[in-house]
């Protein structure tokens, strides 16, 4: 299966890589010369979508091959992140006509797939009894969706921080970021509560301040802070953008940074690597 991943990943990476280059060219041309090209846009749309089709196919075949949902290891969650990163950014791109966001999606998709390609992990098909729950799939899916959406909000915040001094800055970023955070926060809440319901059935209690739970709460509170901060500071606001940047850093710690800090040693969530 590792060989199959290499082939799939190589094809998807070239498709998305090319799409990203064409998109970047299109965005820069629009920014500086106010010109866009329709045929060019059609090409990167198609490249993105073929790549998306392939990653969905690969993920499903992995699911069938392992006879369990491929959601147990960090590498497997990265695969879902690539998938949802593209899905989310493409959908939002269609709604908001904001090309940079598709660029962000492609960038994250490529990054996470490339990490998987460079660190192939052995795929074990066993699943501990406590993980065999109906909550497993919804819990992981809503979380990865939330991560993908909030990752996009981070990307938008970074773009805004870089370009906001430029007179050509459109200022679209704030409303996009706000929407992304509201939607992403909704999914984050679902993940938190689904996790609590699951824990109650499997481990006897819904919340034990396990390190992963603590960090999930930290992330949740950070986005909650952003939402309320924006209610008071409605105009363009650099601090709000910084809150968004930091919140995503906290999210990354929650996702896989925990494996590297001392408190995370005894977590039931520490992804198995053996």
């Amino acid at each position, binding site marked *: 299966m590792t060989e199959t991943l290499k082939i799939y990943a190589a094809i998807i990476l070239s498709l998305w890589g090319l799409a990203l280059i064409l998109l970047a060219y299109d965005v820069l041309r629009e920014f500086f010369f106010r010109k866009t090209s329709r045929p060019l846009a059609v090409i990167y749309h198609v490249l993105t979508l073929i790549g998306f089709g392939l990653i969905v196919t690969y993920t499903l075949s992995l699911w069938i091959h392992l006879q369990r949902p491929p959601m147990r290891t960090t590498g497997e969650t990265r695969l879902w992140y690539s998938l949802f990163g593209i899905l989310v950014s493409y959908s939002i791109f269609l709604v908001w006509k904001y090309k940079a966001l598709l660029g962000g999606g492609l960038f994250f998709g490529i990054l996470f797939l490339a990490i998987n390609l460079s660190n192939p992990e052995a795929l074990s098909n066993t699943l501990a009894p406590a993980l065999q729950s109906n909550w497993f799939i919804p819990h992981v899916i809503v979380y990865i969706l939330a991560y993908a959406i909030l990752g996009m909000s981070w990307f938008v915040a970074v773009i805004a921080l870089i370009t906001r001094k430029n007179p050509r800055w459109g200022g679209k970023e704030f409303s996009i970021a706000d*929407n992304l955070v509201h939607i992403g926060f909704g999914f984050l809440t679902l993940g938190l509560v689904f996790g609590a319901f699951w824990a109650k059935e499997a481990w006897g209690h819904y919340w034990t301040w396990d390190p992963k739970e603590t960090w999930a709460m930290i992330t949740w509170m950070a986005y909650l802070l952003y939402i309320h901060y924006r209610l008071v500071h409605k105009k363009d606001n650099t601090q709000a953008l910084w809150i968004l940047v930091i919140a995503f850093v906290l999210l990354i710690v929650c996702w896989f940074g925990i494996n590297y800090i001392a408190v995370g040693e005894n977590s039931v969530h520490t992804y198995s690597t053996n």
Partner: protein
Amino acid sequence: MTGNPENRRMWSGVWGYRESISITGGLFLTGIALGYALKREVTAVQWPANLFFGLFFILIIGFSAVFFRKSDTFRWLSGKKNAICAIAWYLIVITLLGFVPQKTEPSEDLLYRLGFSHILSSHYFLFAQVYLLMSLGMVTARRMNKLSVRNLAFLINHFGLWLTLFAIGLGAGDLQRVRMIINKEYPVYEGYDEHQEATGDLGLAIQLLDFSIDFYPPKAYIIEGSSGEVLEHDTYLSLKEGEYGEINGWKIHTKKYLEYALGMEEQYFPVYETGAMPAAYVVAESLDGSIISEGWISCGSYRFHGRYLELTKGQLLAMAQPEAKSYRSEIKIYTQEGDIFDAGLSVGKPVSVNGWKIYQTSYDTERGRWSEISIVELVKDPWISVVYAGMIMMVLGAFYLIITGKRKQE
């Protein structure tokens, strides 16, 4: 921004960030100092005192929302800026919790005295929670007079979170988690709490009738003969009868697999008896086909040794202990009222008796299939339905957020 903070003197006019920061910061320091001076941790309040505290808290919020609704202080306390400070304070405390390793036993070092290595039972965390609950509760009470879809969503989100945190906090003292080790010899009627202390009679007794485990096919790996180390591998090889697999340059064919076997003179026979172990007859072939080696391998059990297959002079093929797919205890429950009944326990499928929920948690992992005991946990959580009511509201509120996003600025 509302008001003009630059021109306003602190503690005068309509309060804002500066007052909120001063008060939350002051409470934070007070909490730390209190913990240091009292030399004791916060303990959860039990029934019925927690109910009185809760009602008193609700009364204060309701009272201020009715009689001081127009006052500047109430508007500030329930306002957005104060909410931001309450969230930030809570966030700072749990971020500390995310970094500082926590201790389970009291200690004399400064970090512990200041409350940073027992954050969950520190005074300042209690204050931060109460402050957040107050801010949330007041804004909920303040918004209860308007009826619109948007306001309803606001209320569900805020009241849902409030109810969840409120019930978790108040219910903490009534939560009981008891570990019990049950066996086939006699019914056990007491267990051990979180501090490993015996609980005394729990009002029910449990006896183990039968314990069973279902295993995944065991995995195989290759050991360096001289050092005894496992070779790194990027694939997993499961020993399933009739299947082929590959690991570290060897093609492995599992010709026969016995889940319960006993060995005799290099042979394994299917025997279902205490201490029986999994065994597999494998044919290993190097990828270039130059070396072929075959024979029995087994991971052994607590009673018998395992067995390796020598591939070359330096390498051995070994079987790993199989991983449990599921395990189950058949139990007999005796209640104080004289009821006796049988039940089946497995992970994720608890059984309810007399207000207790019984969970399957573990077994004697050394003995595995032949475990003579089963470890269960009894949980009593009388506030659970209130917590779930809050959480369900949060789920509904989350759906609203996902569907609407953030509306364009009003």
